[in-house]
């Protein structure tokens, strides 16, 4: 598909978020929302579920220059359904001019998307609701102080999975694969994005806009507060997540998957993990070799599969490759 976005030169200049939001300095979710909104334009109503970004709007302030509907934790997609259906039927009945139509966008964190609102998003996708869904995934319940969510990756410490002597590796479960759960619903468009990879993101939103029906985006959202890193490193971490292969950038059109950014050489995951306090226990006081290797192996496995199915050439990180030949 021909794209409008080749370099940052084409970056849209219209601004839909004013400064002054109460989000933490350096919040990755804010970067994604801002860029996402630019790509969609201004005729938008954002339907939100409880999460960090809910507090964008604290009466009487809003940074948004578009419309907003806060629903509840579990049911933002249903809220989007109500608005979309209402606009449709009102236009059909001639009660609302076509020019008053709005794009309906669901915006939630991972707690809503992976856990409490999964039922609601499943329903909306299955019904073919014409909407965008943007998940800002900071891999825990950030708004309540960083508790484990269905999006928390193996090894992360959260306030409900604290690493202790009994449990030195932190969270022992695996991150839910929301991409695959949603893909099984066969939506017209589904993609992962990352705030570091802006052109990739803009292109994906552009592609998505050509489809009617669910257009779903899962964005990595580095969270300086919860992950424990300096706010200036938000983009750096996002980039590392992609380069280490931890956060694959991909899209699926009617279920057919294609990776849009394929690292030629995978950087060792350690480079990504080391920069975050949520993984600090993997390195000090004692190095959790097994856990680190496990994370690396999962990443390797993933990319081997991708290479096999999509024919990309991905070179595994040196250290592990060496270990394997030993």
């Amino acid at each position, binding site marked *: 598909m021909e794209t409008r976005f080749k370099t940052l030169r084409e970056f849209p200049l219209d601004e839909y978020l004013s400064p002054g939001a109460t989000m933490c300095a350096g919040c990755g979710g804010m970067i994604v929302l801002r860029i996402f909104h630019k790509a969609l334009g201004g005729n938008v109503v954002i339907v939100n579920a409880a999460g960090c970004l809910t507090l964008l*709007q604290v009466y009487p302030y809003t940074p948004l220059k578009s*419309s907003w509907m806060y629903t509840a934790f*579990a*049911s933002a997609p249903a809220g989007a359904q109500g608005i979309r*259906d209402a606009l449709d039927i009102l236009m059909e009945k001639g009660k609302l001019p076509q020019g008053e139509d*709005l794009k309906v966008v669901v915006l939630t964190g991972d707690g809503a998307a992976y856990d409490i609102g999964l039922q609601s998003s499943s329903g909306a996708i299955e019904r073919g609701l014409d909407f965008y869904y943007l998940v800002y995934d900071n891999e825990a319940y950030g708004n309540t102080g960083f508790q484990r969510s269905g999006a928390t990756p193996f090894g992360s410490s959260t306030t409900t999975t604290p690493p202790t002597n009994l449990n030195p590796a932190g969270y022992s479960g695996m991150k839910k694969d929301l991409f695959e759960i949603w893909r099984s619903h066969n939506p017209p468009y589904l993609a992962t994005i990352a705030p570091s990879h802006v052109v990739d993101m803009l292109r994906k939103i552009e592609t998505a806009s050509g489809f009617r029906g669910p257009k779903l985006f899962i964005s990595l959202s580095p969270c300086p507060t919860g992950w424990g890193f300096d706010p200036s490193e938000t983009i750096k971490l996002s980039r590392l997540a992609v380069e280490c292969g931890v956060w694959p950038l991909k899209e699926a059109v009617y279920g057919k998957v294609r990776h849009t950014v394929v690292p030629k050489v995978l950087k060792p995951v350690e480079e990504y993990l080391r920069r975050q306090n949520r993984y600090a226990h993997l390195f000090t006081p004692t190095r959790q070799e097994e856990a680190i290797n496990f994370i690396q192996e999962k990443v390797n496995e993933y990319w081997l599969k991708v290479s096999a199915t999509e024919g990309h050439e991905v070179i595994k990180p040196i250290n592990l490759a060496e270990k394997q030949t030993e």
Partner: protein
Amino acid sequence: MRDVEMMTGNTAAAWAARLADVDYIPAYPITPQTEIIETLAKWINEGVMKAKLVQLESEHSMLTAAGTASLAGARVFTSTSSQGLLYGFEMLYNIAGWRAPMVLVNVSRAVAAPITLEPDHNDVLSARDSGFMQFHAERCQDVLDLVLMAYRVSEDRRVMLPSIVNMDGFYLSFTREPVGLLDKEEVAEFLPPYSHPQAFKARRHVVKGPAVIGGHLYTFFKHNIHESITRAAQVFDEAAEKFQSITGRKLEAVEGFLLDDAEYVLVITNSFTTTAKRAVVKLREKGVPAGLAKVVMLRPFPAKIIVEKLKNRKAVAVFDQNISQGFGGIIYSETAAALYHVKNRPETLLSVVGGLGGKFTTLEEFEYVFSLLANPDKVGAGKPLFLFRKDELRDVERAMKLAGVEGEM
């Protein structure tokens, strides 16, 4: 279609939605409400009704969609029962807080556990603090009339709040009786088209549902809802007057039955009212000055009217088809609160709990309640009296034995 037709309460509810020309019906099945959405789905698919019906994945989602659609300017109808209402419960407060007018028909069904199908009012009364108005039906005709009334009151710019219209499962939902319809012109005269002053649309953006930090802001908006719902009592009266002028049918927040000179009065709601009326008639035939006050509008609570209807009576019983565990009847407590400041309040105020889980309350039981009113010493003051018959207890004991539970009650 005749202008009077045999129909169930469920069909009457569907007819009301059709007459109101609703735009949007988010739906989810649950017994005994399901027939309403089936009927509407059929009409829409046949093309006799122009609206969008969408089946959601839960009542929680259904109510969310209902609320947001109303804020986008659509006239919304939806219905549920019992567990469904409770499953979507948090959204009731949200919808009211959003100031999203809509009508929700609740077909009462007792709340599990134990799971059952027949009605009592713990489901609907649990919603009494949410900011929804509540109108309770005795007959199938009331269902139709009250839904139309509810739209008019909800959408009034002085109110802007959602409504619940309640009917009893089985006793109304599946019971047929003649129901009079309105024609298009009559509806148009009664119910102006819906619009929301701050609806979602492209040219003027609006943020709805922002957080408020600070109890004073929260209190301010909550008070505004309280004030608006209180004001709805007057809006209801205006609407009722209009409704009567068009249909000849009189609707009241509290309806008296043989009340004027009554000394012994029963306060009651919903479908058991019909049987209770029969008891009143029988007592009157025997020369007992019995009467009845049916509360139709539960929210806003018509305290003033109730006081007017109950003061100077000898004795009053409140029949609650609900139980606030650890206290007793809900409507009893509200009635008692309303009467507290009245000098010439009735000396006896008896609390009667019956009909839980749809347990049938017989004519004789209502007569018994009236007989107690003449002899209030027989029951302890303030204690709820549970109506339970000996034959019923025997049946329970039999069942317990079969279930393998030893011992007598």
